[in-house]
C-alpha cells in the first residue's frame, strides 16, 4: 500500500515538475510551482523528515509562492522577448535529463546504510534536555551555522531594501493592492489570523521536543501578518520604525549575545549555561522566530517607497 502511495507520489512529482517547466503562462507556472512544493513536502513526510517537510511547504511553497505571484503581477502581460531558438528547448531538456541520470547514479552509489552523525547526536542530546534531535543540531551542535543563516536572512532583506529609491531606506513599502480590500479578504483575515497565529506559536513551542521550530513558526506568523495586510486589518509598517528594526535584529543579535554569554557561563562561545540549557535555547528560538516572521513579511512587501511628505 505504502509502495503504491510512494509510486503515485513520485509520478505526481514528475508531472508537477514538468507542469512548471512546460506551462507557458507565468502565472500558471507559479501556481504549478506552489502545488509542486506541497507534493515535495509530502515526499519529505514519507522520508520521515517532518521538519524538512514543514519548512519546504512553509518557505519553498508558501512564502516563495507569494513572492513569485507578486513578481508575475508586476511583469507586463505580454512579454516582449523574442521567441527563443527552437533547438534550445530540446537541448536544455537533454542536458537536464543527463544531469538527473548522473545524479541518480551518484546517489544510488552511496553506501548503504548511509554513514551519519545521528548516533553522536543521540549520545550528546540528553545533556541539552531537548527531545527533537533536529533542534539539537540546529541550536546546539551546529549553532554557528544557524546563527549565520539568520544573518543571511537579514542580508537578503537589506538587498531588497537596497532597491529602494530612497538611499536611506525609509518609508513604507508600496501597498500590495491599490483598491481597498474586498469584504471576503477582510473577513478571512479577521477569522483566520488568530487561528494561524496560534498554529505558529504551537509550532515554535513544540519544536523543542517534536517536529517544528523557529523557521516553520516564523513563516506561518509572517503569512498571518501578510494576510492581515491584505485584509486591510493592519497598516504596512514604515521601515525606519525603531521597534521594527529591533525586531529584525532580535534574532541574530540575541543569539549572538547568548553566544558571547557562553564565555561567561560555559567557558566557550555558543555554549549554554549548564542546567539552564533548555530555557536559554527556547528564549533564543523565540527571538529567532520573531525576526524570521518580520523579515520574511518585509521581504514579500518589497522595498520602501521613501519618506512620506505629509
Amino acid at each position: 500500500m505504502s509502495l503504491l502511495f510512494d509510486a503515485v507520489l513520485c509520478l505526481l512529482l514528475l508531472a508537477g515538475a514538468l507542469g512548471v517547466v512546460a506551462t507557458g503562462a507565468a502565472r500558471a507556472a507559479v501556481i504549478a510551482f506552489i502545488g509542486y512544493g506541497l507534493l515535495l513536502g509530502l515526499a519529505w513526510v514519507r522520508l520521515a523528515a517532518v521538519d524538512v517537510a514543514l519548512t519546504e511547504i512553509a518557505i519553498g511553497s508558501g512564502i516563495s509562492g507569494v513572492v513569485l505571484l507578486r513578481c508575475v503581477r508586476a511583469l507586463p502581460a505580454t512579454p516582449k522577448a523574442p521567441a527563443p531558438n527552437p533547438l534550445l528547448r530540446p537541448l536544455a531538456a537533454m542536458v537536464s535529463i543527463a544531469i538527473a541520470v548522473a545524479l541518480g547514479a551518484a546517489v544510488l552509489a552511496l553506501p548503504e546504510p548511509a554513514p551519519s552523525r545521528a548516533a553522536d547526536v543521540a549520545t550528546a542530546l540528553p545533556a541539552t534536555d531537548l527531545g527533537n534531535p533536529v533542534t539539537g543540531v540546529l541550536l546546539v551542535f551546529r549553532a554557528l551555522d544557524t546563527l549565520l543563516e539568520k544573518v543571511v536572512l537579514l542580508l537578503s532583506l537589506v538587498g531588497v531594501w537596497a532597491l529602494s529609491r530612497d538611499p536611506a531606506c525609509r518609508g513604507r513599502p508600496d501597498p500590495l493592492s491599490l483598491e481597498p480590500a474586498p469584504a471576503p479578504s477582510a473577513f478571512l483575515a479577521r477569522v483566520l489570523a488568530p487561528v494561524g497565529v496560534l498554529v505558529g506559536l504551537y509550532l515554535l513551542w513544540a519544536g523543542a521536543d517534536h517536529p517544528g521550530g523557529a523557521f516553520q513558526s516564523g513563516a506561518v506568523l509572517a503569512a498571518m501578518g501578510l494576510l492581515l495586510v491584505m485584509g486591510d486589518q493592519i497598516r504596512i509598517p514604515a521601515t525606519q520604525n525603531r521597534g521594527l528594526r529591533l525586531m529584525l535584529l532580535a534574532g541574530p543579535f540575541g543569539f549572538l549575545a547568548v553566544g558571547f554569554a557562553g564565555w561567561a557561563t560555559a567557558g566557550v562561545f555558543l555554549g549554554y549555561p549548564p542546567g539552564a540549557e533548555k530555557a536559554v535555547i527556547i528564549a533564543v528560538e523565540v527571538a529567532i522566530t520573531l525576526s524570521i516572521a518580520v523579515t520574511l513579511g518585509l521581504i514579500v512587501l518589497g522595498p520602501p517607497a521613501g519618506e512620506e511628505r505629509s
Partner: protein
Amino acid sequence: MSALLVLAITAPLLGLVPLLLLGPRTGERAALGMLAVNVAITAGIAERVAQGGRALGYAVGGFAPPLGVGLRADGFAAAMMLMAALVLLFTGLFAMTGPGDMTRKVNARGSAGMPSTFFILLLSLACALNLAFLAQDLFTLYVALELLTFAAVPLVCLEGKAGQLSAALTYLLFALFGSVLYLLGVVLIYGLFGTLDIAHLAGLMAHGAGGWTAAAALALMSAGLMAKAALFPLHLWLPPAHSGAPPAASAVLSAVVIKAPLFLLVRLWSDLAPLPLAQVAGPVFAVCGAAAIVFCGVVALAQERLKLLIAYSTAAQIGYLCLMFPLAASSDGPWSALAWTGGTLHLVSHALSKAAMFLAAGLIAETMGHDRLSGLGGVGRLAPVSVAAFGLGGLSLMGLPPSGGFVAKVMLLTSALQQGSWWIATVVLVGGLLAGGYVLRVVVIALQHPDSDLPDVRECRWRALIALALAFGAMLVGFMPLSPLPFLEIGRPLTWESVLP
C-alpha cells in the same frame, strides 16, 4: 583554543547594530571602527600563527569536529584574512568621504559618500570572508558562500540604474547556480563519509575511499566555486557586474570577493583531495586558467571604457592562480612549494593592486564625468595621483619589478620551467605582455597632451592617496624573497591534533 577566531567572524557583525538602529553618520563611523578592529584581529591571528609556528583552532560550543563545527587558522588562511581586512578598511575609508571635501552631505546620492547600506554590506563581507578562510566544515563553508553572495550582489546595484540591475541579476543567477552545485557536492560527500569536517575527510579520502562518487562530488563543488569566482568559461557575469558597480563596490568585488571561492578551490584540491586525484584535476584547471589569461586579456585590450578594461583584466588575472594547481600537485619537492607560494602571493598582490586600480578609475571617471578611454587624453594633469595609483597597481598585473605580481609570476615561471611545463611558462609570459598592453594603453592616453580644454576640476586628493596606498601595498609584496615562504606552510597538512585540546 583561540578566541580571536570567533571574534574575527562576529566582531564585524556587531557593526550592523548601530548602522540599522542609529543615524547614518554614527553608524558609518562605527562601521569604520569595526573594520579597523577587524584588521587588528586578523593581524593578531597572523602574529600568533607566526609566533607559535602552528595553526590556531576553536571548537564552537565546545563540541569538537566532526559533531561540532571547528574553526582553524593556518598560515595560508591568516595571510588571506589580513589582506582582505586591509582592503576592506581602505575601501571603507574611501567610501566615507564625498568628492572634494571630507564633510559628506547625507542622502545626496552620487555626489556624497556611499549610502549606509554599503557599509552594512561591507561589514557582512568582512564576516563572510573571515568565515570562508577559517571554517573547516563543508557546510559552514556553504553558509560563508551564501553570506558572501548576499552581501556582494546588492553592491552591484546600489545606485539602482537599469544596467546595474540586470548585471546584478545575472551575477545572482550565476552565484546561486554555483551554490546549488556546491551544495550537491556537499550532500554526496556527507552520504559517502558521514562527516563534513575537512581534516577528517582528508584522512578518509587519502586511503582511496569514495571512488568515483567522491571525485564527482569534488567536481560538482569545484564547478560551483568556479561560477562564483568567475573562472573561465563561467566568467560572463563578471565584466558587467564589476564595471557597473560604484567604484568602492567594484574594488571590493574584484579584489576580495572572488578570492574566497578561489581560496576554497585551493583548499579542496590541496588539502582535501588525495594527491592522485589532484594530479588529474590540476591540468583541467590550468587549461581554464590559461584560456582566461589569453582570452580575457585580448578582450581587455579591445575595451573602450576604463572600468570594463579593469574588469576584464580581473577575469584574466584569476587564471594565474589556476596555473598553480598542476605545479603545486605535481610532486612534493621544493618546486611545488614555490608554485604554492607564488599562487598565494599572486592572490594577495592582485587584491591590493586591483582595489587600487578600481578606486583610481573611479576618481578619474569622477573628475572627467565619464570613463571612455578616447576622451581621457591628458587626465594625468587633473588627476596625477589617481593615474599614478593606476600605473603602480598596473605594474603588478604586468609582472614588472618591484611588485608582488613580479615575485608571484617569477615563482610560477620558475616552478613551471623546473617541472618542464613549457606551455604554462609561455602562458605566464603571454599574459604579462597582454597586461602590459592594456595597462600602458591607459597610462599613455592619460599622459598625452589633451585634445581639447580640460574641465576645471581636480581629483579628490585624499581619496586618491588611499588608492595610492593600496598600490604601494602591492609593490611592498614585491620585496618578498624569491623562495617558498615558510609562513604559508604553517599548519599544513590539515589536522586537529595539537590544535584543539
